[in-house]
């Protein structure tokens, strides 16, 4: 046991229970004067290559002009949201803030952001992928935009499919549910251990919601009812969602899914199919070369669906230089900058101008499917509600139970009732206070 833990917990408690109220009281006063003409920018410290590109971009932007300068602060990804939340309560947010897309709605509801639609040039907005606009819109205003989006698909090994005599599907003619079950069995018949599908069960956290909820949506279910009167009961534990999760459970319990503990199930060709994101492409294409196929997810009844959304940028409500912050954001959305960032992290460029020049994503490029899915309405936004952090946490817990064999309906019902309690506790997230002011700005 640890003395260190003790010290840290005491410090955390101090932060929470003593510093927090003090800060809450203090932030009614004036903000202490920041340095002259500096635009503060906070971003998550992603991969090494991403950090390098972003630092580079800041330097280039600052060199381009003499007036306002951008100052970049990188915050570790693991506890990013917790740290930003604490800073927000302390009234200490930067001018331009990065965060993971699904957290947008809770920042807006807390009154931390200001709308971007009036700040960002219309030409820049017009060039963005529809999925970027969709993710950034809440209460009929645009609050955030990303410089890249994500892509979710099913990677397949051409050789193994051919050996089992399996047809290659397309967006227009995807595999349906029964066909997919049959494919798993046929592949398993030729496989040493019968485990032929990789669902990235080794990933923790957000992946579960991002990667698996499209299968629920393809079956006609969802995480939550998407109307204003958002509820999870009857939806997340409804027959469609339960059916989809039962199917996934049967793949896992039936021994068709590789646990992927070494994170190399597909790269070493141990499995023929792998659910995965754009970030898997470099390694897979290096290992499989021309044998690599990128396919759409199976259609579980209501057409194939996929995920979308990634990190995005927003101008904070208290920013003293909103135009300058938006100016830097517009710079990040210039085709060269988008291409530099997406070359570093492999993600889908957010603007059509950049996509047209991207070797991977341009029409006919190997990852063209991701763009088609995002533009063609196949991708489903994760629920645009301030309750999202709870929705995803509960869904992950439910999945954890389901994968170890628990009753699917019971697990999803429990998650749904926790989510609905959370929504009721927050009175359905009415737009009040600062958020209301900002939404009318």
């Amino acid at each position, binding site marked *: *046991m*640890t003395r260190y833990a*003790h010290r840290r*917990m005491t410090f955390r*408690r101090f932060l929470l229970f003593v510093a927090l109220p003090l800060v809450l009281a203090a932030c009614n006063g004036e903000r202490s004067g920041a340095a002259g003409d500096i635009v503060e920018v906070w971003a998550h410290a992603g991969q090494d290559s991403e950090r390098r590109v972003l630092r580079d971009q800041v330097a280039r932007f600052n060199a381009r002009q003499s007036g306002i300068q951008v100052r970049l602060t990188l915050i570790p990804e693991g506890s990013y949201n917790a740290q930003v*939340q604490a800073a927000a309560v302390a009234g200490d947010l930067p001018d331009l803030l990065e965060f993971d897309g699904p957290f947008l709605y809770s920042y807006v509801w807390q009154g931390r952001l200001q709308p971007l639609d009036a700040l960002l040039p219309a030409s820049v907005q017009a060039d963005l992928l529809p999925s970027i606009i969709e993710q950034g819109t809440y209460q009929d205003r645009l609050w955030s935009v990303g410089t890249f989006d994500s892509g979710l698909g099913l990677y397949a090994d051409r050789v193994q499919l051919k050996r089992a005599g399996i047809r290659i599907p397309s967006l227009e003619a995807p595999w349906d549910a029964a066909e997919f079950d049959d494919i798993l069995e046929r592949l398993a018949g030729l496989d040493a251990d019968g485990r032929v599908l990789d669902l990235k069960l080794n990933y923790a956290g957000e992946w579960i919601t991002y990667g698996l909820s499209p299968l629920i949506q393809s079956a006609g279910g969802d995480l939550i009812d998407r109307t204003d009167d958002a509820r999870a009961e009857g939806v997340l534990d409804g027959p469609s969602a339960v059916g989809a999760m039962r199917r996934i459970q049967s793949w896992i319990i039936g021994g068709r899914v590789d646990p992927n*503990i070494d994170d190399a199930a597909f790269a070493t060709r141990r499995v023929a199919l792998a659910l995965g994101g754009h970030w898997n492409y470099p390694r897979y294409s290096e290992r499989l070369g021309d044998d690599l196929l990128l396919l759409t997810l199976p259609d579980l009844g209501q057409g194939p669906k996929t995920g979308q959304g990634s990190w995005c940028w927003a101008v904070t409500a208290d920013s003293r230089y909103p135009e300058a912050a938006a100016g830097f954001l517009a710079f990040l959305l210039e085709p060269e900058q988008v291409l530099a960032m997406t070359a570093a992290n492999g993600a889908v460029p957010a603007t059509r101008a950049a996509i047209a020049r991207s070797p991977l994503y341009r029409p006919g490029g190997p990852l063209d499917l991701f763009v088609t899915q995002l533009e063609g309405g196949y991708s489903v936004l994760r629920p645009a509600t301030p309750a999202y*952090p709870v929705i995803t*946490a509960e869904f992950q817990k439910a999945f954890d139970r389901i994968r*170890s064999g628990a009753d699917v309906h019971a697990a999803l019902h429990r998650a749904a009732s926790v989510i609905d309690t959370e929504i009721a506790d927050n009175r359905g997230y009415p737009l009040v206070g600062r958020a209301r002011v900002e939404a009318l700005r």
Partner: protein
Amino acid sequence: MSKPSTRRRLNDQTRAGWLLAGPAMLGLGLFILLPFLAALGMAFTNLRLGSPLPLEFVGLKQFQRIFADPEFLRALLNNLLFAGMIVPLQTALALGLALLLNQGLRGTVVFRTLFFMPVVFPMSLVAVVWVLIYAPGPNGMMNGFLELITLGVWEPRDFLRDPLLAMPALVLLSVWQGAGFQMVILLAGLQQIPRELYEAATLDGAKGWNRFRYVTLPQLRNALIFVVMITTILAFRLFDQVQIMTRGGPNGVTTTVMYEAVQAVFTRQQVARASAMTVVFFLMVLAVTWVQRRLARQEREVA
């Protein structure tokens, strides 16, 4: 008490006492008592981090909810399980190490330093190192070691994702990390036992076990009580290992009250709910410590 002279003397001492205890009391009040009272107050509200909705008094609702929450109950149970495993194990190991070091063999200082070293490492570092030790697959250090000593019978397991092995895995690393601290305390206790007692016991014909049972253990009583109590309190605080290594999984077998509270406030912004958890937690630790002290004291009276 009724005599004025006694009272004056007591008062004089009291003033000096308060003066000397002042700095420590101030620290205790500011960092322990005040936060606890704040948590107690918040536990009866609906406070959320950053919520624009008005603060409301909700009575006992937060407490009713956490006691109806299977995860919180599971966390309480896990805390008890962890303490129940680690207190005897760690105390026994620390005692064993202390006895070995007390033999006065060559190189004692080196071994004492080695055994104590893990205590100095931050738990976060230890946890990360042990994640590598518990790495799944045959290349993981622990899997490799078990395979070696079982002559290949051992099948590689994913310790931290195995519902049966995850908790014991945390116990093992925690014992390894913490035993050095208890060892040093017990070693100090051992070195204070007068040699004459052992000589007398030898003259009475006592051999190894009896010398340990009837001389060492009774003489170590106070040190052991202290060690058991401090280990119990530290065991209840289990958090770092869980946060870094298992995140409460698989299926809740390693979640703890501390982990649930941190999750509530930092991923779900539920300050009030987390406050209610910490209040329950505080009372539980207080109760366990109190019971232990009662038992120890009664023993002393009998003895």
